């Protein structure tokens, strides 16, 4: 049975706030405004990228795991200053933002996504598809991710993952 059916509905304002928040995150990444990225999360947080099969098995290690805003900051600093890779962009296509309920003061939200990646030479491909499983808290009117788990449909990643999904 679909959990959402009997979930406590968020009011329109809250839903709008959450939807804009999730949408803005995608635009932020695709616009390469990555310095803003850590600001989307609470100080203590979870950012995890793990494939669907491993997630189902309850594996504790996927391909990325950050547990503090500091780690997110370090990721971006590394991306800007340390890591070597070929220039490329993501384009996040989101579908079906659904609020599934509330838990411990956070809204549980699920959103399907596909990320289209464009390399500098022009190659376009679907880099990843899957689902965002989020816990969103609202602190003085501003939503923040307490937890954002990216559950990828594929266990295979092409070349490397440096830009956050």
């Amino acid at each position, binding site marked *: 049975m679909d959990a959402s059916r009997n979930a406590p509905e968020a009011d329109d304002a809250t839903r709008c706030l959450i939807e804009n928040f999730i949408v803005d995150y995608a635009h932020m990444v695709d616009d390469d405004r990555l310095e803003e990225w850590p600001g989307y999360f609470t100080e203590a947080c979870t950012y995890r990228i793990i494939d669907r099969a*491993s997630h189902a098995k309850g*594996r*504790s290690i996927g391909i990325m795991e950050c547990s503090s805003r500091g780690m997110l900051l370090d990721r971006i600093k*590394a991306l800007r200053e*340390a*890591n070597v*890779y070929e220039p490329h962009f993501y384009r996040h296509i989101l579908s079906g933002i659904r609020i599934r309920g509330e838990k411990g003061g956070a809204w549980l939200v699920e959103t399907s996504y596909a990320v289209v990646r464009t390399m500098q030479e022009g190659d376009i491909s679907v880099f990843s598809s899957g689902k965002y499983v989020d816990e969103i808290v609202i602190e003085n009117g501003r939503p923040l991710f307490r937890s954002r788990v990216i559950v990828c449909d594929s266990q295979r990643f092409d070349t*490397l993952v440096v830009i956050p999904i």
Partner: protein
Amino acid sequence: MTDSAAARMAWQKEGYSRIPYGVYTDPEVYAEEQQKLFRGPVWSFVGMEQEIQEVGDYRTNYIGETPVIVVRDKDGDVQVMVNRCAHRGNLVCIAREGNASELTCVYHNWRYDLKGNLVNVAFGKGVGNVGGMPDDFDPAQFGLHRLRVETLHGLIFATFSDAALPLRDFLGADMWANLDRVLGRDMELLGTFKQYMPNNWKLYMENVRDSYHASILHMFQATFRINRLSMKGGIRLSDNGWHHISYSIAETDREEAQYNSKVLLSVKDGYLLSDPSLVASWREYDCGTTLAIQSTYPNFVVQQIYNSIALRLCLPKGPEECELMWWVLGSADDTAEQREARIKQSNMVGPGGLISMEDGVVGGWVQRGSKHDPDLTTIVEMGGRDVAPTEEGRATEVSIRGFWKGYRELMGV
């Protein structure tokens, strides 16, 4: 070898320090490797015993590009068989993993036991005495192609070749010892993933053996001023030079006391990290080995980077593509604190690895930079032209030369 494409390449008369770029792109060379190398006298890693604990548990994998089934038979032994039905070539196991009491081909229900013997042919006797297999049909001739298997500390190796030495002799004492050290206890599988790379599989295996690039290509530690304990280290090779270990050991010095403890190293270094807990580690091995990258011929890697332990298998997927499979491990008796440290350290490796993500892309750059000059060669002469152990890891490419020594010997070029 006149009709050998590999032999036609621009090899220097002898030695292992000039590699013709054509070996990374030529389709015929690639096809020869499938036969002479991946089906030659080598032991290929195909999975872990933890993945097939119960009788009938199986997982599928590849040796070179040949699909294989890895299964635990009714005696509790591990069997490895080519995943190809003897009837008309269908994959006998479709799923990546599962459990089965027998191996049944879905196409016409030819049934094999867990050792690969053909036990039943559907309608083999025909229907009402009509049809069926000829009287001279001998099921014993039509089992699955079963390979030689050896296991060590949960690692499953298989070979197509009767000429392959026993695993212990194939690896040699040093290689064996490192596997003992890293994996010789109750290990737990913490995660698996795959990484696709736009380059010939050998470019990745060279990269793994290439201690020269580590402190240069990967800028993460330098950027965040992660000055590890002063190290000594070097390269160990098997006697034939085919396999390698590059390692670092924490020297006994004033930080030793602290590092010597089994508790997490409070991170004085990495002070530029916003969250230094990312690099917190503990002295897991009495020998003080902080880093050991081991590769066994042809395409298997065992990694210990501080407390990040992983296995890697590099599968060829055509001349210009390969896939890297990862198994990330922990010890069954990790404390919660240690387990958390391993998880955090896992951010260093894999497709998103802060330290090693570059290894996923540099091979593709070499592919693109060199593919149009198949007759030109690399120069692999850092640290000389020979194949011998050394106490210096950064300024040598000796273990890459070892790889090519094995290559020329196996390919007969």
